[in-house]
């Protein structure tokens, strides 16, 4: 990892600790050992570890530059962002579309998106697999284990 990356990590650790301490200060106090005792200790420890990380990084030498294969390429970042977007979309669609439709759409899109660049996407196979998986999971849990997964608009047609 490069010096800059290690410094950014140290700053993030320090920021997390200070942020947590700030939130702790908003809590009501009821004596020395109260609900804030451990949060103060933990926040201070996080901030101190962040400072140590920054200090050690500044004092350390011998950082190697990142190899080209280690650097994130724009296309990779885009795929990660699209995956996060798909997962978020799937969760947001669970109630309005229902589990079977939301899961089938998510699976189809995610199969396609994760297909390695060395392979050609197979949309028909992905569609069949997505629908089949969504239906099998829904039926197994809703009727086999009585877990009331949201049915969405399909609810009125379900037994």
């Amino acid at each position, binding site marked *: 990892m490069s010096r800059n990356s290690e410094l950014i990590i140290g700053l993030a650790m320090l920021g997390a600790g200070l942020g947590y301490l700030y939130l702790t200060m908003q809590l*009501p106090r009821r004596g020395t050992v109260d609900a804030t005792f*451990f949060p103060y200790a933990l926040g201070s*420890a996080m901030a101190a570890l962040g400072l140590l990380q920054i200090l050690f990084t500044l004092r350390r030498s011998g950082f190697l530059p990142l190899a080209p*294969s280690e650097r994130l390429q724009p296309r990779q970042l885009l*795929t*990660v962002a699209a995956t996060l977007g798909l997962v978020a979309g799937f969760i947001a669609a*669970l109630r309005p579309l229902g*589990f079977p439709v939301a899961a089938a759409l998510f699976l189809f899109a995610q199969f396609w998106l994760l297909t390695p660049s*060395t392979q050609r996407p197979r949309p028909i196979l992905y569609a069949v697999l997505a629908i089949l998986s969504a239906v099998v999971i829904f039926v197994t849990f809703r009727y086999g284990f009585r*877990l009331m997964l949201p049915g969405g608009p399909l609810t009125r047609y379900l037994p």
Partner: protein
Amino acid sequence: MLDLLLAGFGNVLSPQIFILITLGVAVGIVFGAVPGLTAVMAIALCLPMTYTLGPAAGISLLIALFVGATSGGLISAILLKIPGTPSSIATTFDGAPMMEKGEGAKALGVGIVFSFIGTILSIGALMFIAPSLARVALSFGPHEYFAIAIFSLTLIATLSSGSMIKGIFAGVAGFAVSTVGIAPVDAITRFTFGRVEINAGFSILTVLVGMFAVAEVIRVAESAHRKGGAPVAPPLLVRIKGFGFSMAEFLGQIPNAIRSSLIGISIGILPGIGAGTSNIISYIAAKKRSKTPEKFGKGTIEGVVASESANNAGIGGAMIPLLTLGIPGDAVTAILLGGLMIHGIQPGPMLFITQGPLVYTIFAALVVAAIMMLILEFVGLRLFIKLLAIPKHILLPIILVLCAVGAFGLASRIFDVWTILAFGILGYAFAKAGMPTAPFIIGFILGPMAETNFRRGLQLSSGDFTGFLTNPIAGTFLALAALSILWQVYAALRPHKIATLPNAQD
């Protein structure tokens, strides 16, 4: 006793109960193997099915689910680097590297056999020393629990591969995340931002699934369209013979298995700490006792043996306070207690006297379920390996959907599904920052135990901190914790000294 045990075996080997045990173990293995589905969920979802069964059949089915699900976690831990349940977190540390080295079948075989051994040893403990063990465990109060939690937390640094600062930070961050929700003792809501959904804090399941499964999907997304990098080779698989390991390897691991099982049983007995903790503690103990600690984390069977013996040994351990005192130690045994009560059985000291035949039927069901687990997993070994033939871009999204089902199943809330995404992003950030995930999980599990018992202990000793040191057991554990910290600081400084000596090895 022998008569009762034989009668118990007679009961569970009847066709109806035997089939139920076989089915229960099979379903349990699937629940354990799929990240997001747990033993708790398997038992909770199948509990209504036992209403129409008799007590022996119903309890046998629940026990079979418990045994299968506890062991099943090793499958995804080894094959996919995603622990199926919290009990298998440490199995990923060496199981996954073994998989990458082409020794996946061997790792699975070792895990299966030593899961069986751990279960059998714990059943032995349950049958022969249950009441006295339970009495000792019950004498533990907040001082002892706090000291045990602190001692376990100091072991976090051992799991910090790479930077110790990052490892300790991860543990502290896990503890910090566990403070979200209603505080112990004074019931102040902390860091909830007015969201009632997190008043009870985050569930370990959503944290685990997010940090491991969702983060893994994001990592696969990152590498799917990498240009210029070396192509990722599929894991090599050698032909599987038997369980995939030699007799010499088996015999060499017996001391490790016995030590890990004892840790698993001891921790299993203590209410509130379960297999989620014991597998990591026994992994650390095995690493410390090993002649080749440098091999840990790179794919050694010692790590898999330690984790799998300990987590399955927790089964018998957890049953000890349940049956002898009627006290459930964790969520699984709490549901089992409910199952027993539904069938008109009241666990407690009188159970062994009033319901002797049923108690021994439970023991027999545990033994038969353990044997069925061994057989089914041995048969399934080749099938599990075939899972790897499914491309990751197909398998992981399906697993993610199952994780979402598991999170939703916790309380039928979409909110819990959102939390797995949030922890997935955190897990991915940890991976990018070179921060280990295991200390975070340990901090998250042990944090509430340390805080709650610290506050209760202080109340009991009227605010006097020395109560933690004057209590013999608590004092011993706190002294061990101090020694552990000193040793780790010394170990961290020692290599630098050696490195500064020219030609140290000469």
